[in-house]
């Protein structure tokens, strides 16, 4: 381990130490939630949760389980801090983030506690870069109160099929309307743009549909501008679970497989744009 040259003593001052052989396993998943600068980090024994929010209507969470890291030591029950995500990503890809097989950047991420900077040791090909990023007062993430017990409709799709639809969506439409229903059209994405309207219908027996659990017809509208960042997560993922609860809140969960075949999750919550009467 190139980065294990740090002395044990030095390690003891840190409340959080996490090392990764391949920094891409962290940077890629963080890219999936990069739409605002401020990211709230919360580390527990289970791993790292990174939260980014927009307009109090959208929240994105990336979960990186402890076992993704080669080393994950946490001395407190919970460690929280906030950093500028763009700066962090710039640091994580400081060696250029090459995708050449066999060339990886190793990372050791350390945090000494409240008021201290987040320290990154990055190593590639024997060159070590140390980055210190000032941390900010952690904000409390919004609780969207999205309970699995309140979920009305849920579908799991292979990301490929949804990616195609999202890449073609009419961006002149201000909203994306999602209809989920136990009967036709089952799962429908609609846009209402300058040139007219468009609908993408997925039948429930499609090969792309892994799970279809819809109990009630629901039509909700979401701001396109809010949902747009989620396409970054969609691009990385292999499966996506789309859920809506009784209030019309949307949960998008993306299953992301990293370079080493391990699984991480990215989750987006979005509040509905307005009430729509069922037609």
């Amino acid at each position, binding site marked *: 381990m190139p980065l294990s040259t740090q002395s044990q003593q030095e390690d003891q001052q840190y409340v959080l130490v996490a090392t990764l052989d391949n920094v891409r396993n962290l940077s890629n998943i963080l890219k999936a939630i990069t739409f605002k600068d401020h990211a709230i980090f919360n580390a527990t024994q289970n791993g790292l949760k990174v939260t980014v929010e927009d307009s109090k209507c959208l929240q994105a969470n990336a979960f990186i389980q402890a076992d993704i890291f080669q080393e994950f030591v946490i001395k407190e029950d919970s460690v929280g801090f906030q950093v500028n995500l763009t700066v962090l990503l710039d640091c994580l890809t400081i060696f250029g983030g090459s995708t050449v097989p066999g060339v990886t950047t190793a990372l050791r991420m350390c945090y000494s506690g409240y008021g201290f900077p987040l320290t990154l040791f990055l190593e590639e090909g024997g060159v070590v870069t140390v980055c210190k990023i000032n941390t900010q007062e952690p904000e409390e993430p919004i609780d969207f109160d999205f309970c699995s017990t309140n979920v009305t409709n849920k579908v799991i799709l292979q990301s490929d*099929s949804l990616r*195609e*639809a999202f*890449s*073609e969506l*009419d961006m002149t439409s201000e909203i994306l309307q999602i209809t989920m229903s136990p009967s036709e059209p089952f799962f429908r994405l609609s846009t209402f743009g*300058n*040139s*007219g*309207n*468009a*609908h*993408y*219908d*997925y*039948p429930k*027996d*499609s*090969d*792309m549909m892994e799970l279809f659990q819809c109990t009630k017809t629901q039509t909700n509208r979401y701001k396109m501008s809010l949902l747009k960042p989620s396409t970054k997560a969609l691009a990385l993922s292999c499966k996506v679970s789309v859920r809506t609860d009784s209030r019309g809140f949307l949960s998008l969960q993306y299953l992301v497989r990293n370079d080493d075949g391990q699984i991480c999750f990215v989750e987006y919550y979005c509040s509905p744009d307005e009430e729509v009467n069922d037609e």
Partner: protein
Amino acid sequence: MDYVATGGNVKVLAKAIHSLSRIGDELYFEHQDDGLALRTVNSSRSAFASFFLSPLFFQRFHTCPGHTFRCKMPVKSVQSVFKSLSSLEKTVEKCRIEWKPERSQLTFTLHCKHGLLKTHNLSFQDCESLQAVFDKEGCPNVLRAQPRLLVDTVLNFPPSLEEVTVSVSGDRMWLKNHVEDKTDQFKAMMTELCLSSEEFDHFSVSLQTSITFCLKELRGLLVFAESTGLPISVFFDDPGRPVVLSVSDSVLEANFVLATLSEDAHQNNNNNSKRASPPTPADDFMCDDMDSYLIAMETSEIAGASSQKEPQPSSSHGPPMPNHRVFLDSVMEEQQQERDEEEDLERPPNKKFRSLFFGSVSPTPSQVANQTTHSQDVLASDSEDEG
């Protein structure tokens, strides 16, 4: 009205719309008993393109007999239906185009793999038929070549090149880039290449001539021809008369009609001495020959004449409009007005640009003074904050 295209024909339809989108902003959609016509014309009306799809192109070609349907819509919105050509090829199994008389929208439905159904309801406007008057058969020169030959030829020219000059003799064809300005000619890289008649499927030249036209539209048609593998026929006459590029097989026909630079412009370019007094040749050009080239369209004549008053040297904002003419027929009044408006819009910018320029020059002292005081204010407040 109900059409269904399947398999490879969906891609052909998509490619046709993509190549039309390279020419005009609006797609004219016209149902005829003997097929479906998709047409467009560019904003300066120097290029017209049409695709005609016969009923056999479609798996289903259903219509109420005697009922004509005609509309126009932004080509971009139709393009969005066939957005990704690569995935289209792999995923789309069937495309259905539908219109019901009670609806003001045209419905495109794509049936894709895995049961995915994409429905686009596109708004449209009523319109008159868009037609260009041209006579392919009357052209003394006809060339036909495989798309590959022309694609490879056009590849030699830089993508930024707007116009190309094609010259033909009994057994050869030359292509070279057309350079507008004599001064540019020294700066520009000149590319010239020669194709022997043997390279063509058909080469009949009875008039040795040299024509100059826009490359953009040719490129648009080449994209289509290359994907379908259909040979391209080129029909042309004297400079100033339109060139017709044509692709056809048993179920479809595409015609791209492009204006060519008239002889006068050529002479202007070739004659160095005339460069000394540029406005005069432009006027001469307007009075003399232009009328003879304007055949059909009264509307274009009126508007064309007005557009020609624009002094030629200042054509920095586009292709040399006055030289290009396509002969369009029976375009409705609304379009004429549109066109007049366009012309009006197109003309003032030049003046506007100048007046803006002068405007910014004349009040300079006060403006500069204002600006400096303003920026000083800001600086001052900043330093206060820091202090």
